[in-house]
């Protein structure tokens, strides 16, 4: 593969190269330091493998604000051409255009370079002074690993390093020797410790079971001792306890025989004399209470009787009296009001008489009121109005007085003859005219017409005149008629007025021409008469009511013995009513209290009877205690007191026994009863035998106490040990550790298996690839070293490690590729190794460009020339870029190999415009 043209839009310090031509074979890139050689080397690698690293890519242009962008025109060994364009913006982009097909590569390697990874390419194909002079053992081994272990990939760590790491991890888990403190060793030690705990736990369990067994034995022994002790103690107790008790019981029995009735005597209270006095005193006290209640009962009876039947009757008037007591002032006031009203009625009567004198022909009479009030004033007014209207008509007719004007006075009468004359004349003239001539005919005709017209007018006027005469006569007749009718109506209307006023003796003059003034006076009188009438009616009713009340008041006060209705009488009656009510209240209270008093009286009588019974019973009890009838009470008391003293003695003795033997007195009594039946037991109570029993009991008690102590200790031990670690728990811990150990051991074996497998894989890999590399290197080595060394080989050293060796031609001896070989020799050996590896890798792939950066600088002249021969041969199949800052070196290479120079400074000049 060769780069034919190179276009750089921007890449580090390089900018704006457009299709710069690149020589095809050995290319000497000469430039000063920082001229861009390293940038160009990076650019070549970027073309093949993309931008690495993408983040913070180190060759971003620092002179222009552009993303890195390069394009190369490539020609492959099979003759095909391709255009490769790469650009790094936010994401890497790459396009490979080949045979008209464009393929996106993103940041992937050029497919033709993918058989060598980017890192391996950088390490192997780019030879620098630094990596060519890698002479230390570690570095060489690393190089070897990188060259061999990394074939086909740039992603793997050196197999040796990984094997060491795996074995180191495995050894940290388990080692076949005793070195270090691997995890398994720690676990084994922990297991040992736990197994010791297991022994302890087993011993503890054993001890617990022994303790439990001993505990059980002790329980049994204590039960046995308790049984023996009980038997012994029973016998000793008989000796210590029964006999004294028996003696006292015998004494008690003797005393009991002195008491006729033990129960009755025991029941006697202390101080018989005092008791008797007390019961008598109580009887008297109860009797006094009965007397007191009876006295109170009598007093209350009298109080009830003080309220008599008369009092009860008076109380019935009480409410009426109280009502009258409050109404009495109003009653007296009403009487005064009646008097005033009567005076008012009298005044109204006088005013009515005054009016009557104006219109009546006599003084106002007693019956006139009714006649006056019966007059209908509207009717009267209507009649007066009618009268007055007719009177006015009559007056008007009489005032007019004459008949209407005659018709002839109005219409003159025409004489008839002028018409006849004119007619006749005309007739004549007409006749003449017919005979004489026309003009005479005409005159005759006019005369005839005029005569006829005159005759017609005279006739018409005469007719009108007759009509007017007839009407005039009729009007006159009508007037007369009206006047007569008006006079008649006036008379009738007056009559009507008089008819209304007839009940009253109205003065004649007023009746002659009645008017509205008359009406007004009568109306006023009527109103006064009505007021007076209503007043009198009211006065009459109120007076009647007052008299009824007065009668009622009189009856009420009369009930209380009063003969008058004065306020003083009222006060006396009220005072009497209060007294009656007080008596009734007292009587009611007595009614309420009396049942209680009767009840108290009954109770007091019961108590008195009880006290009497108690006294009688006590005396009867004394007689029972004494056992005989004693008439003398003092003798009875004395004898009963003596018996009572004996009973107290018995009780005291029995109480002593009960106190001394609170639980087992009855048992003791039964045992005493048994002793009484078994005379042989008496022998057991002998002192010597008792002492022996007592000693044995003490021994048993001591043994029991010791056992109880031991049992307590065992309980404590069991309790304590029960909470300690059990065998199962320890076994659990052991199982956990064993499991952990199994895991650790399995993990170790797994890691070691992997390490061994990797070692085997590495061996296989080296077997596959090393021979070819070594053979190729061996061919190159004599050329590079001038024949001093002729072969490279990998030879196992002590410890089984394989090391690179070189054979000296002269002696045939292998020498390790390491000092004391010179730096230059080591460089040459590794360069041979490197070129061999490159050829091995590219043998079935596209040969990739090689970059050699000042790597030849340390070579002597002969080896330099030999090296150039090899470079020239390599350049036959690929581009070889030889970077140097030394002009002389560039010149020598060009001179020796016909290589072409690619001056960085002249790159612009090589820029050609695309056709």
């Amino acid at each position, binding site marked *: 593969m060769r780069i034919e043209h190179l276009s750089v839009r921007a890449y580090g310090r390089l900018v704006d190269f457009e299709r710069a031509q690149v020589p095809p074979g050995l290319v000497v890139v000469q430039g000063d330091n920082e001229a861009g050689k390293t940038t160009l080397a990076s650019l070549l690698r970027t073309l093949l493998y993309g931008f690495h690293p993408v983040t913070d890519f180190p060759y971003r242009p620092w002179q222009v604000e552009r993303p890195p962008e390069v394009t190369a025109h490539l020609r492959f060994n099979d003759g095909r051409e391709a255009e490769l364009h790469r650009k790094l913006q936010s994401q890497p982009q790459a396009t490979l255009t080949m045979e008209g097909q464009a393929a996106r590569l993103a940041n992937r390697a050029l497919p033709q370079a993918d058989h060598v990874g980017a890192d391996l390419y950088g390490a192997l194909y780019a030879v620098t002074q630094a990596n060519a002079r890698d002479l230390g053992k570690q570095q060489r081994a690393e190089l070897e690993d990188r060259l061999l272990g990394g074939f086909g990939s740039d992603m793997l760590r050196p197999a040796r390093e990984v094997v060491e790491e795996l074995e180191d991890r495995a050894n940290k888990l388990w080692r076949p020797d005793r070195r270090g403190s691997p995890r398994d060793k720690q676990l084994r030690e922990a297991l040992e410790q736990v197994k010791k705990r297991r022994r302890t736990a087993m011993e503890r369990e054993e001890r617990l079971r022994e303790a439990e067994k001993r505990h059980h034995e002790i329980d049994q022994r204590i039960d046995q001792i308790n049984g023996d002790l009980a038997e012994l103690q029973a016998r000793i107790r008989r000796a210590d306890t029964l006999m004294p008790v028996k003696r006292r019981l015998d004494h008690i029995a003797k005393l009991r025989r002195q008491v006729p009735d033990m129960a009755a005597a025991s029941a006697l209270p202390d101080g018989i004399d005092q008791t008797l006095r007390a019961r008598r005193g109580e009887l008297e006290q109860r009797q006094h209470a009965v007397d007191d209640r009876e006295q109170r009962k009598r007093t209350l009876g009298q109080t009830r009787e003080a309220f008599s039947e008369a009092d009860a009757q008076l109380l019935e008037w009480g409410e009426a009296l109280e009502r009258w007591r409050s109404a009495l002032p109003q009653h007296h006031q009403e009487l005064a009001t009646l008097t005033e009203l009567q005076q008012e009625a009298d005044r109204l009567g006088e005013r009515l008489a005054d009016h009557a004198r104006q219109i009546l022909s006599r003084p106002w009479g007693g019956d006139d009121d009714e006649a006056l009030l019966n007059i209908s004033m509207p009717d009267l007014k209507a009649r007066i109005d009618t009268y007055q209207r007719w009177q006015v008509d009559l007056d008007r007719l009489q005032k007019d007085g004459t008949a209407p004007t005659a018709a002839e006075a109005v219409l003159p009468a025409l004489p008839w003859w002028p018409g006849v004359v004119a007619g006749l004349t005309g007739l004549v003239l007409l006749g003449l005219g017919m005979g004489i001539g026309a003009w005479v005919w005409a005159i005759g005709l006019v005369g005839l017409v005029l005569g006829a017209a005159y005759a017609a007018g005279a006739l018409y006027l005469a007719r009108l005149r007759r009509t007017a005469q007839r009407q005039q006569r009729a009007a006159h007749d009508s007037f007369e008629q009206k006047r007569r009718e008006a006079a008649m109506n006036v008379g009738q209307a007056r009559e009507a007025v008089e008819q209304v006023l007839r009940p009253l003796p109205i003065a004649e003059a007023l009746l002659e021409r009645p008017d509205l003034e008359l009406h007004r006076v009568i109306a006023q009188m009527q109103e006064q008469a009505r007021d007076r009438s209503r007043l009198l009616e009211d006065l009459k009713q109120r007076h009647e009511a007052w008299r009824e009340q007065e009668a009622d008041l009189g009856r009420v006060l009369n009930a209380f013995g009063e003969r008058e209705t004065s306020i003083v009488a009222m006060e006396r009656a009220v005072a009497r009513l209060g007294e009656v009510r007080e008596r009734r209240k007292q009587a009611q209270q007595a009614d309420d209290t009396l049942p209680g008093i009767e009840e108290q009286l009954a109770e007091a009588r019961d108590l008195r009877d009880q006290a009497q019974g108690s006294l009688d019973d006590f005396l009867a009890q004394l007689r029972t205690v004494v056992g005989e009838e004693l008439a003398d009470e003092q003798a009875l008391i004395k004898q009963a007191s003596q018996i009572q003293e004996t009973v107290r003695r018995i009780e005291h003795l029995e109480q002593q026994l009960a106190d001394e033997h609170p639980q087992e007195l009855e048992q003791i009594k039964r045992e005493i009863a048994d002793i009484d039946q078994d005379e042989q037991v008496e022998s057991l109570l002998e002192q010597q035998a008792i002492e022996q029993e007592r000693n044995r009991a003490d021994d048993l008690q001591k043994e029991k106490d010791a056992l109880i102590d031991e049992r307590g200790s065992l309980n404590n031990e069991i309790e304590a040990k029960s909470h300690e670690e059990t065998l199962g728990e320890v076994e659990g811990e052991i199982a956990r550790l064993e499991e952990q150990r199994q895991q650790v051991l399995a993990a170790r074996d797994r890691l070691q298996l992997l390490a061994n497998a990797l070692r085997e894989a*590495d061996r296989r890999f080296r077997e596959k690839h090393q021979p070819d590399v070594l053979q190729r290197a061996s061919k190159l080595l004599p050329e590079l070293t001038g024949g001093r060394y002729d072969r490279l080989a990998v030879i196992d050293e002590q410890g089984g490690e394989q090391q690179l060796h070189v054979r000296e031609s002269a002696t045939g001896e292998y020498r390790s590729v390491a000092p004391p070989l010179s730096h230059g020799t080591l460089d040459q050996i590794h360069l041979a190794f490197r070129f061999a590896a490159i050829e091995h890798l590219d043998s079935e792939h596209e040969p990739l460009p090689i970059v050699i950066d000042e790597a030849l600088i340390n070579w002597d002249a002969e080896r330099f020339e030999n090296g150039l021969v090899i470079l020239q041969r390599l350049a036959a199949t690929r581009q070889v870029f030889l970077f140097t800052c030394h002009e002389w070196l560039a010149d020598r290479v060009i001179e020796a190999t016909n290589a072409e120079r690619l001056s960085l400074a002249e790159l612009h000049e090589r820029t050609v415009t695309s056709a």
Partner: protein
Amino acid sequence: MVMLRLLHLADVHLDTPFYGQEESMRRRLREAARQAFGAAVDAAIDREVHAVLIAGDLFDNDLLSFTTERFLLEQLRRLDERRIPVIYATGNHDPGRANYRAANLDWPANVHCCTSKQPTTTTLHDRNGNEIGRVTAAGHSSAREGDNLVARFPKATDELPHVGLVHAQVEAATGAAAHDRYAPCTPADLAAGGYDYWALGHIHVRGRAADQAPAWYPGNVQGRNPRETGPKGALYVELAKGIEPVPEFVALSPITWQHLQVTCPPSAQTLDKLAPAIVAEIEPQLVEGADSFLRIELTGQSPLASELRSEENRRTLAEELKAAVGAGWLEIRADHVVQAVDVERFRGTPTALGELLDVLSEIGHDDALLDAVAPDPLAQEIADPRAYLRSLLDGLDAEAADALVPEDQR
């Protein structure tokens, strides 16, 4: 028809060594086994069973502690007070010969302890004293009983329901391979006896032991380690002659073990992001009603493979998950978590890794190559080293790639 009511339990393993990193956890498990047995007694009393059947391995002989022994007898006395008989056939962990614990305990009167391989029959009665069923039982006298005990059982010809009780390994039963082969028998042996129900013990997985016969393992009452997962307990059986029994599982274990596999999401770049992803994965799978003890087996490719190799990191992650899901205990295993390396990319390539993948593949079947690369010596004595080494190959491809490919190249 009166049904014969039985509570069938087995493999209580009181005081067995329990799995657990911490002593407190082992104590908790030990206490859980006792609680489970106490719960079994409660269940027997509540359901008024006619008998409790214990099919062996009630306790671990050498390990039965003094206090547990007291507890055991106290619980059995509770049944005695309720007049519930207990038929107990010994197993390989609690054999019945004279020098073992089973023969020396002070059993209450209601316990019929069958310590001999010779079957004995006990008749069961109802509350009125009427015969209601029979139980024939045989026990292990030694810790390594190799005889077929079932074959010794007499034929069940009675009119009453007849139950066989034995601690035995039924060949081909589910889970049999994980247990020692003591008192082996076949399904045909079980079918031959004509029993109405076989109450078996030994295998810790609950289930029917044979299709040909009504033989059941109740499993153990409390899981002992992360392999014994799920709810554990006893079987409640109602029996009538001629009717196929349908045992009812009675959960007793206060602790439920769960072994959950979780594939690490490659998107989880930090442990903080991994934790919620795991919680989301396991929460739906948690068993309710019991204290969960969880083993989380992480697998797959993850950028956190290196972090997960650290025990401290795993413990921190486990504590976080435990708090998040409310588990009683939680363990993280990440042995098979590898870096996100595409192994197949390297297979067949001319690289050391390509060669290594070939070698790992070949040693799966090439004994000579396996012998050549086998660790010498092995860290432990192994009867079949090749099988052992091949068992270690699982996931080794990815681990090889993990070791060889640098992190920045993945």
